[in-house]
């Protein structure tokens, strides 16, 4: 057990130290100035001096990301249930879902501001648009992938369509839904920051990390910009960790992906 913990922790710590060293070395070798390539020390220093601003912005972004993520999860599941209902629904609706997915959000940003309004509603809409698609595709696949012999069993034992959905198709789709959620969890913070960058500044003082990017860039506070990137990355990790936990909580009893391979 002890030996395993070592194997998990040591390599990333070493590689991390190596990359930081490389960063310092690169800076020393090229002689670039701090406003082009700040050292890790300068980035942490900026993060410290700006920490109140950064944390408040991160909290704002987290709100937008969470709102958009939850909307994507609910709507994604609902759309998947519709698509899973019949083949004609899939062939009839899927192309239009693709249209929504393929339209670059940056193009429709002004329309979103016009309809949803600036600030949080607009940001949530952008986050939703960026993160719902993988949930729909994965969950639909899951609803359709219940084993044929199990479907036969349910039919033969007189299950209603509702029972079949509730006791067979939804549980079968659960791992797929969670995979969709995991992809969406990596996209949601990106979506929220992108949303803030696009529509957040129209709101005036709401802030958010996306808006900070805009502010620090115009002020040429490059170390603070790096610090913003760091915080955004942390936010993403928190989202993914939360979904990974959910995945574990719902699946570890029964799903093969949690099979222990003792050697």
């Amino acid at each position, binding site marked *: 057990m002890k030996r395993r913990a070592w194997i998990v922790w040591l390599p990333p710590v070493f590689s991390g130290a190596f990359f930081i060293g490389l960063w310092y070395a690169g800076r020393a070798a090229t002689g670039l100035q701090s406003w082009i390539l700040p050292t890790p020390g300068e980035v942490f220093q900026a993060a410290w001096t700006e920490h109140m601003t950064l944390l408040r912005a991160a909290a704002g972004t987290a709100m937008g990301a969470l709102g958009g993520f939850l909307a994507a999860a609910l709507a994604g599941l609902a759309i998947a249930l519709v698509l899973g209902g019949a083949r004609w629904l899939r062939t009839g609706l899927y192309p239009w879902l693709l249209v929504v997915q393929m339209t670059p959000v940056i193009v429709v940003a002004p329309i979103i501001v016009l309809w949803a309004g600036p600030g949080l509603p607009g940001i949530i809409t952008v986050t939703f648009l960026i993160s719902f698609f993988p949930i729909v595709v994965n969950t639909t696949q899951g609803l359709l992938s219940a*084993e044929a*012999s*199990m479907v*036969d*069993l*349910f*039919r*033969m*034992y*007189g*299950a209603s369509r509702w*029972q079949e959905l509730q*006791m*067979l198709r939804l*549980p079968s789709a*659960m791992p797929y839904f969670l995979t969709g959620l995991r992809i969406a969890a990596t996209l949601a913070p990106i979506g929220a920051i992108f949303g803030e960058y696009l529509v957040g500044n129209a709101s005036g003082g709401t802030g958010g990390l996306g808006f900070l990017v805009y502010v620090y860039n115009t002020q040429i506070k490059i170390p603070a910009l790096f610090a913003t990137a760091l915080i955004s990355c942390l936010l993403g990790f928190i989202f993914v960790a939360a979904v990974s936990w959910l995945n574990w909580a719902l699946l570890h*009893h*029964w*799903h*093969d992906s949690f*099979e222990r391979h003792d050697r």
Partner: protein
Amino acid sequence: MSDQPPIVQFRNVNKHYGAGPPVLDRISLDVVAGEFVSLIGPSGCGKSTLLRLVSALSPVTAGALSVDGTTPEQAREHLAFVFQEATLLPWLTAAGNVELPLRLRGVPPAERRAQALELLALVRLRAAAGFYPRQLSGGMKMRVSIARALSREPRILLLDEPFGALDEITRNHLNEELLGWREKAPFTALFVTHSVAEAVFLSTRILVMAAGPGRLHAGVPVDFPYPREAALRERPEYFAKVAEVSRLLHTAEEGRAA
């Protein structure tokens, strides 16, 4: 035997899927209540299709099929099916899986749990009631699967190569136990298998089928008395019966080559 009305009756039944070639050709067959009938034959002889017809998973193309004195759809209530794979729901415990048919019927939770535990005790898995399928061995999963089928208290039990994926030792044990369970919860069995030895050990009658198109080649009564014990497998008359069925299986395949 002939004074009882058949519980399963095929009259000139044909079956093909869509515009495909015939899978079953002019099947006429009477199965009487209490029989244990094994279907054996080369792959593609339509023996699994025959079970699908009886269970109303697939309609007959032509001819008449009556089950339990009525149509296959109407008879479903008194029928249970055991597939080659255990087909357990992986997110339910062993007890949860055995309960499933009762749950679909709307039996209240406490009652169905009690019945499930009783059935798990019957298949000697009472201690594994709370285990998930992935924690069970292949043989244990099949026991759970059979317990689930028995929870319907079926008059007719259809088994589609249920022990085909198991090792021979496990298979022999389950053969003996299956006959034991049948003593306690009597059912008429239609049993598809690839194993002559298994068919001889279990059945009151063996139907040898031929392929291309699937048809009945020969029927062999097996009149060893029940209860049958493992020692039956060492007796000369058992070997003789195995040899007889093997020979018929051989001629069934030759017929196809000719």
